[in-house]
């Protein structure tokens, strides 16, 4: 495990931070929201593609830079600072990883290259209930002559409203609740029988409900081994959790910085409110949590690149810790800003709204506390 960035990684971080600051500030998300774009932002996608952010985890032969998770973490954190609504997590982390790890040469050439180049975006269609529970998938994929027919529904698919390609997890064997018997399918958005219902989400990043009614796909659209999707899904979900943890860390850091600045400018009773000890101690405790969460995220990122044995453990640690962190910080951000923090014109609310989505996706704090304890054997 290494906590020190290489020069290349530092450069990538600086590029990402500058890009987020200049091209995707919070005001950009606000503008998208007020314009009713609901998280769809093709213009920014192109810029992100030019920067190669979608290819960071993709081998060079398929158009990526194979830069690794530590690098991707720097991007995610930068995007998190400004609450940027992008396809990087879905396409650059999840889609790219699934195809890299499980795709056939042909699938990689036809799909992975497009994802790496940002021409195509993908979304993982996994959860069917309101809480993250991979093994609970009930959507059925029935074998027929020339492939499979899928029937079922997916709830709140992040990036589902803008995805060109869906990575659909369906059951080819066994019962909901069983990890074995799941299979991954590549389903383009225009496939017959697939309908996408875009959602107005609280964080203005958008998402979609999917319904699959007799969606037919050929053999070539099976990704990885039949019945064994979990073998690749597990490590890729951990990458998603770690990347999301990095994004969450960035959001918490930005909200905290914004609050600190307010504490050092707002006056009441003739004093800077930041000079009141009760607020000082709460700020110091948040800073403590921030620093500790930062360590967890950094450790998890580098563990992936080093194929460490404890990636799952560190993923749950990073996801749970950053979830607790952003929960606390987003609440304190509104509280310490007082009335102004309650107004829609102020950014506090946007950080809090995105925070709850960051907390919930791919398992909330209690999901990961439970998982961490299981991995520790109690």
């Amino acid at each position, binding site marked *: 495990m290494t906590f020190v960035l290489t020069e290349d990684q530092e450069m990538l971080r600086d590029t990402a931070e500058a890009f987020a600051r200049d091209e995707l500030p919070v005001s950009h998300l606000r503008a998208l929201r007020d314009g009713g774009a609901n998280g769809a932002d093709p213009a920014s996608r192109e810029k992100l593609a030019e920067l190669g952010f979608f290819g960071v985890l993709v081998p060079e032969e398929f158009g990526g830079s194979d830069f690794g998770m530590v690098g991707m973490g720097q991007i995610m954190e930068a995007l998190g600072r400004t609450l940027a609504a992008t396809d990087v997590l879905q396409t650059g982390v999840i889609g790219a990883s699934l195809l890299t790890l499980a795709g056939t040469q042909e699938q990689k050439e036809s799909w992975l290259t497009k994802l790496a180049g940002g021409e195509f975006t993908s979304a993982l269609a996994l959860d069917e209930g309101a*809480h993250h529970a991979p093994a609970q998938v009930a959507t059925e994929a029935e074998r027929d002559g020339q492939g499979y027919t899928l029937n079922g529904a997916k709830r*709140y698919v992040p990036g589902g409203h803008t995805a060109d390609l869906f990575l659909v997890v369906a059951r080819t064997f066994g019962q909901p609740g069983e990890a074995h018997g799941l299979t991954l399918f590549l389903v383009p958005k225009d496939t017959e029988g697939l309908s996408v219902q875009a*959602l*107005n989400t*609280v964080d203005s990043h958008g998402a979609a409900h999917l319904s699959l009614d007799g969606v037919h796909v050929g053999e070539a659209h099976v990704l990885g081994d039949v019945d064994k999707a979990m073998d690749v899904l597990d490590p890729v979900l951990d990458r998603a959790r770690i990347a999301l943890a990095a994004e969450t860390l960035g959001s918490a850091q930005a909200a905290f910085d914004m609050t600190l600045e307010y504490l050092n400018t707002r006056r009441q009773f003739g004093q800077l409110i930041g000079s009141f000890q009760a607020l000082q101690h709460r700020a110091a405790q948040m800073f403590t949590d921030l620093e500790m969460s930062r360590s967890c995220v950094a450790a998890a990122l580098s563990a992936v690149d080093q194929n460490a044995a404890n990636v799952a453990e560190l993923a749950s640690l990073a996801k749970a810790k950053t979830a607790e962190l952003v929960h606390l910080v987003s609440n304190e951000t509104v*509280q310490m800003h*007082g*009335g102004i923090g*309650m107004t829609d014109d102020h950014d506090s609310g946007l950080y809090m709204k995105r925070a709850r989505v960051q907390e919930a996706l791919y398992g909330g704090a*209690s999901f990961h506390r439970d998982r961490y304890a299981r991995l520790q054997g109690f």
Partner: protein
Amino acid sequence: MAYDEASDLESFREETRNWLEENCPASMRTPMKDSEIVWGGSRETFTNPDSKLWLERMAEKGWTAPTWPAEYGGGGLSKAQARVLEQEMRRIRARPPLFSFGLWMFGPALLEFGNDEQKKRFIPDIVHGKTRWCQGYSEPGAGSDLAGLQTKAEDKGDHYLINGQKVWTSYADQADWIFCLVRTSSEKKHEGISFMVFDMSSEGVEARPIKLISGSSPFCETFFTDVKVPKDQLIGQVNGGWPIAKRLLQFERSSISAGGFGGTGGSGILGPEEYAKQHIGTDETGRVADGDLRGRITDHKMYAKAFSLTVQRSTEQAKAGQEVGHTASILKYAAAKMNQERHELLIEALGTDGLGWDGEGFDPTALKATRGWLRSKGNSIEGGTSEINLNVIAKRVLGLREHQ
């Protein structure tokens, strides 16, 4: 004597009961609909015509303000009689005929601090719901530190000229008149504040609704540019507004910690434990499968139970004539904490169903819960922040000192 009093009361109850029987329309005995609340004033539309009738009849007897002096149009009832009226109204589930900041806040203060002429001028229209009032207190630079307010009132001989800005002015865009704190002297902080009232249709007054993180709200930003206020609209003495303001805040706070936190009552929103059962499921013994979330929901439910028992305790002890200031001092702080925790658990238990904003694809009740969650963040800010509450408990109740 005591006997007479008692018998008088009984005959009063008799009359009241009969009068209500005859005069309270049937539809006014059904649970109040938000859409049918009567705030009065020039913009009142009376979506239900019965509510107009009901208001007029009650106002006629002065029973919209039962204990206010009859000479100003009040009911002139004794406390005991007022209690009887209240009981009799509750008995037939009669709706309150009028919601009004005039009745709850300004009126009582005016009766205490206003001159006779002012009472004659303003009280009757409050009683009859003809004038709708709003409160001009907080300013962008004066939140917790209300006395730091900067809205200026210059003495122009026959009138005052008002310039400045108020914020968090509830229903300023609906109100006819405003009662307002202004600075008439910059020499002393508290002793430089005056209490004035004026017409919201005066030239130079502008009210802009405030959008909250939870969506639209009754709050406004209110701007005053060279607003002329005749001198007879000053309440109390020049620079003597602060005591009036503080008195009035008591009315406001009590109304907040009493009613302010019903939150999701009647909204069709279930408790977090119900959503947890629905969305996460239970083990063979019927416990919510997520032990961690279950534990936190239990913490909250225990806290909520302890809170309601504390409200009950202070009420009973107050009735018994015991000093309950200490106990009461914690209620606003605890209520905010409880209500916020409840909403956090609600949206956590709802999972992604609790992460919608509007439109298709989300259950309307869940959407309400999500808006309620966002709105609840204001509970620890409005009407005195939790930080101020804790300061007050530490200093006034626990007797801890200031830095020397």
